[in-house]
């Protein structure tokens, strides 16, 4: 069943319920990639769901992600934080897939989480959408209103930055 069908289906149906569960978990992970805070991510997910319910909109992943993203930006603008920086002038950069690399287990010792927390929001978001959700550069561009070239460039620079941060982490916390 496609997620598009959820809007007209019974959420008590086990098949629909499992689709819905996957959608909400995916929305939560996206919110977490933006906020890097579990409580904030839950707040964002709940707000977005309430908005979709109030608008009687359909339960699609793209729609949920947009709702979460707009609430995140709105919330941080109100708090006068500037989580997203302009990418103007940063369109130059290599096109194509950014390569992965082999690293020691940085998950177990918390190095990866610390390094991710030091990335800028748009860097973490792009990394999440590309690696975890498997979005193409074009799909990321549509969600984040950026040209495809900017997305590819940002992804490449983010991976390089993450690698540096992990190397620094390894020196600081050997």
């Amino acid at each position, binding site marked *: 069943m496609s997620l598009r069908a959820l809007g007209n289906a019974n959420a008590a149906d086990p098949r629909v319920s499992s689709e819905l569960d996957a959608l909400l978990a995916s929305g939560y992970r996206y919110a977490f990639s933006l906020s890097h805070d579990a409580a904030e991510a839950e707040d964002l997910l709940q707000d977005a769901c*309430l908005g979709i*319910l109030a608008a009687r909109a359909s339960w699609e992943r793209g729609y949920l992600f947009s709702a979460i993203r707009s609430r995140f930006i709105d919330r941080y603008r109100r708090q006068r934080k500037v989580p997203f920086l302009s990418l103007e002038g940063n369109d130059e950069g290599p096109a194509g897939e950014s390569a992965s690399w082999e690293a020691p287990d940085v998950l177990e010792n918390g190095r990866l989480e610390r390094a991710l927390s030091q990335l800028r929001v748009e860097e973490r978001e792009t990394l999440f959408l590309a690696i975890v959700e498997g979005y193409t550069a074009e799909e990321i561009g549509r969600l984040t209103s950026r040209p495809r070239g900017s997305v590819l460039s940002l992804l490449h620079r983010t991976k390089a930055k993450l690698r540096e941060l992990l190397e620094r982490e390894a020196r600081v916390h050997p």
Partner: protein
Amino acid sequence: MRTRGIDDQIRELYMAQRPTPEVMARLVHAIAQGHPAQRWKAWARVAAAALVVALVPFLWWAAHQVWSVPPDVGGLVAREAAAGHNGRPQLEFRAGDYSQLRAAMKSLDFQLVEPSMQRQMRMRLLGARYTSLGGSLAAQLAFVDVHGSPCTLYEARPVGALATLAPGDHQVDGLRVTVWMEKGLVMVLAQPLA
């Protein structure tokens, strides 16, 4: 030293993140309430289509007045308030009176007010944080009551979903959640059941 692809490790880290079961259950429940099942047999669809053509004005009215099941905003907001209380999030501002909080929380789109119940119930203010309630920006204020029990008050402007919120009491997760309007703001108080 064991090595693994960094993409796999990033994926693993994010895939391990999940909302709490309470939040998940609450959202699935709310969505189920908001979108009742619509299962039609083929013949019923044809008959319904014919009826729609014949009775468009009536169906338009009925869809808005009778068959439209509004989401349980009051219940959802009460559960959201209870979850915020039970989650005990860290306070961004520690202050013992409202003037300090007003000075600190400049990004609110309203002025914090001291509700009348605070003095009546002799509750002591501990501090506050920015949060959201019903999709709107809100202040979450932490108190302790005369028995030393923690209480949480939310203040927000009555906009969006909160504009339709009816005053009243809800019992959620061992808490009494009270909703009311005061001085032009929506107030939601979560406190332990007596």
